């Protein structure tokens, strides 16, 4: 099992670009892109809170658990 980040779905629903979201959250576009593509080890609570505020959603809307493929 692994945690997957589904920011892109919420961004599409809110019609928000990566640059706009990065500016609102206060992180770099590079870091947000890494988070979106699952290339990070973790996410800080305040970053998660910033994303939830910007996308008007709850943490469960952008984080999910995925079963590993055999």
């Amino acid at each position, binding site marked *: 099992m692994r945690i997957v980040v589904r920011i892109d779905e919420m961004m599409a629903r809110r019609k928000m670009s990566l640059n706009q979201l990065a500016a609102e959250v206060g992180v770099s576009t590079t870091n947000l892109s890494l988070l979106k593509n699952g290339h990070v080890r*973790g996410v800080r609570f305040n970053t998660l809170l910033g994303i939830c505020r910007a996308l008007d959603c709850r943490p469960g809307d952008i984080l999910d658990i995925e079963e590993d493929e055999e």
Partner: protein
Amino acid sequence: MTARILDWLLTAVLMLAVAASVIALAFVIIAPLAGQPLDAGYSVRLEAATDARSDAGGAHADIRQGSLIVTGAGLVADLFRAADVLVTGALWIAAIWMLRRVCRQVASHRPFAPDTTRGLTLAGVLILLVPAWQAVRALVWQVILFPHAPAETTLIHTFARVPEGGALRMMPDIDAGLLVAGLVLLVVAQAFRVGAEVQRDSDEIV
């Protein structure tokens, strides 16, 4: 002391070490070629007690440790002296160079990096190699160079006299401080390795 001052200091020490090594190497090569025999001093131990005793209140002391000056021990010894200067100089220069590199990485405000760990480990190993080389040097003199020294070799020792059947054993002048310093650097390198892992974790958390 700031990393910048330490960097300047290490640069100055590095330049001094290079200059001293070059001068020493030139001296040990040129002196025998110019017919000037080289002197070298070593700590020695007398295997049999000498008559040099000091009686004080019924107590007496046997003098068993002293020093030995060797003058003109032949071509092989001269070549070994040159190799000794080369190896010792190279070890010191490389160790100071690595410490200077580590110092610069610390000054760059990202000290916990794999390069710093590697640099500290290498500097520690190089410093540990200095006393190891000192032990090898003593062994080479004792086992190879002394028994095959030419007849014109002059040996001057600090003992009153060496009794019949007595023998001088060279003592390896191993610097215990360097052993400790090398080990301390290896411990610090391990701490930096853990720090580098923590830094990587921190970098990969958004």
